[in-house]
């Protein structure tokens, strides 16, 4: 009896210890630092006041979340058809496998390398501008670097695989006989997609969106490299405070602000989607 009780205690305690060590403690450390005064010590909200009462900080927050939302939307719009193609259209297994490998391969290379790649491609005389000019679509090169558009392109490129994988996974799980039942009941293919396939793939869309959004608003490398210092996002501010200014209190407050806003956005999104499902 005592043996089994200690086993149960162990089973409860292990995950608890794990979560405490890896998630709670680091988070609490940042949180406590953010509430501590940089000079005198002691508790203070001044770090937060410095952020929330300042227009510049609000504009950084706005840029960060605008980039996050746009990245998520574009990733879904591009990723859904891609996932559909991989799961539903491709019949030849080898080709599907090749596509999946091509899709995830970039994830194994460094973010920095890929962002530098885009710096080269998007530059004044980069491949993108040259192609557009050669095609006669534009007369003078477009400035991508140092604009939100440039960062957006980089983020979409880096985060697209996550959406394709989660949506593809959800699509693969949709039982084929449900679509056949829909056709049997008189629904055309398009109607079947809207009334059966798409609703059943929404869990994949939602989890993909959350992953992409969270990664996009907290991304540092891509915005830092593609912004050329002209566009600032929250993660870049945080990094500056921790790595060059060494103000862990103000930096911590920035990090917590980012976290709270992210959770808030996800909560609003899931509330909206739940109301929409009614």
């Amino acid at each position, binding site marked *: 009896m005592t043996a089994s009780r200690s086993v149960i205690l162990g089973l409860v305690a292990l995950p608890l210890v794990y979560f405490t060590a890896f998630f709670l403690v680091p988070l609490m450390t940042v949180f406590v630092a953010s509430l501590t005064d940089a000079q005198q010590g002691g508790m203070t909200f001044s770090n937060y006041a410095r952020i929330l009462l300042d227009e510049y900080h609000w504009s950084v927050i706005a840029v960060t979340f605008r980039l996050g939302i746009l990245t998520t939307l574009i990733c879904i719009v591009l990723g859904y058809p891609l996932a559909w193609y991989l799961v539903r259209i491709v019949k030849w297994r080898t080709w599907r496998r090749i596509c999946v490998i091509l899709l995830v391969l970039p994830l194994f290379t460094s973010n920095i390398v890929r962002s530098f790649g885009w710096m080269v491609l998007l530059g004044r005389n980069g491949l993108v501008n040259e192609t557009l000019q050669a095609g006669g679509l534009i007369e003078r090169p477009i400035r991508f670097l140092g604009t939100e558009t440039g960062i957006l392109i980089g983020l979409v490129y880096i985060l697209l695989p996550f959406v394709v994988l989660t949506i593809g996974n959800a699509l693969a799980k949709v*039982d084929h*006989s*449900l679509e*056949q*039942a*829909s*056709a*049997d*009941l*008189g*629904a*055309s293919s398009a*109607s079947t997609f809207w*009334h*059966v396939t798409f*609703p*059943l793939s929404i869990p994949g869309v939602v989890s993909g969106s959350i992953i992409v959004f969270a990664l996009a608003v907290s991304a540092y490398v891509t915005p830092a490299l593609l912004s050329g210092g002209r566009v600032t996002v929250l993660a870049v501010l945080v990094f500056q405070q921790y790595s060059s200014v060494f103000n862990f209190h103000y930096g911590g407050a920035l990090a917590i602000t980012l976290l709270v806003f992210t959770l808030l956005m996800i909560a609003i999104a899931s509330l909206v989607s739940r109301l929409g499902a009614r």
Partner: protein
Amino acid sequence: MAGADMTLLAIDDISKNFGKHQALCDISLAIESGEFVSLLGPSGCGKTTLLRLIAGFLRADRGTISIAGEDVTGLPPHRRPLNTVFQNYALFPHLTVADNVAYGPRRTGAGKAEASRRAQEALDLVGLGEFGDRYPRQMSGGQQQRVALARAIVNRPKLLLLDEPLSALDLQLRKRMQIELKQLQEKIGIAFVFVTHDQEEAMAMSDRIAVMNAGRIEQVGTGAEIYRRPATRFVAEFIGEASLLPVQRTGNGALTIVPAVEASGRSVAVLRPEHAQIFAGQADASTSCNLLSMEGHVETVASIGGVTNIYVRALGHLVHARRLGLVESGLREGQKVVLGIDPQNLHLLEGPQP
């Protein structure tokens, strides 16, 4: 044309291959309005494939299918005037029971109110009027089966295809649903094509049964016909129980049974166990005239419930006999007996048998 009016579903010379594997071969079948036809056959014989061809989920390599006189061979599933009850029910998990049933009317142009009125009607018909607000996962297997049925009949198709719709239910429920399904079918007058590999189910429910084997239809007929006059050896052995006995005609045209050692190349007669009589001695057997008699000995006696199965070895054949009730005294294993068979009860299979 009068005959053609009656034919609801006409399947003509359908063949279907999967790669090198021939799943269906030269299938022809005609089904009348309001008829209940079962497709019966062992696993892998092509029943589901035939059903999917009729529904339009598969394309045939050769042959045509027409429904109510219209050639539907090239039509996609949603343009065919029939509905299907799927083996796993295939209920939409994201829709309530009522919305599942209303799905058909909604997609075929009915308004919201009209669709839900018809859905309610169909649910009432299967006895689930109260359950419209639930989700499929909140229903038992039997209830889900009825929802699938309601969803399939709500558009009032002329033809309903059912792929082993009762196979997921336990025996009790299954028996009850057989009766309910049959009653419902008669009430609404829809023709059913019902796939099963349970011959009792097929016998109990169908107007006609199509017995399939290895991608072909071996025989089509009423339950009594295929039991009494099986067309092929396969049907004789697959439907009910039978002893297959090689026979020949003597000079005066009478049948005699040939010993097992001389069996090859003879015609074969089918003997049902209830038609094999057992006598204690030759004298008893000859009291009733015209019986073919064979001497033999009892090999096995097995009582199961209300019937006793007796296997007698005679002329090298193992003949199966059946009696109602417990076996009478004195019938022991190894005992010498005489088998008596009324030649009228022997059904001769056509053509030379292997």
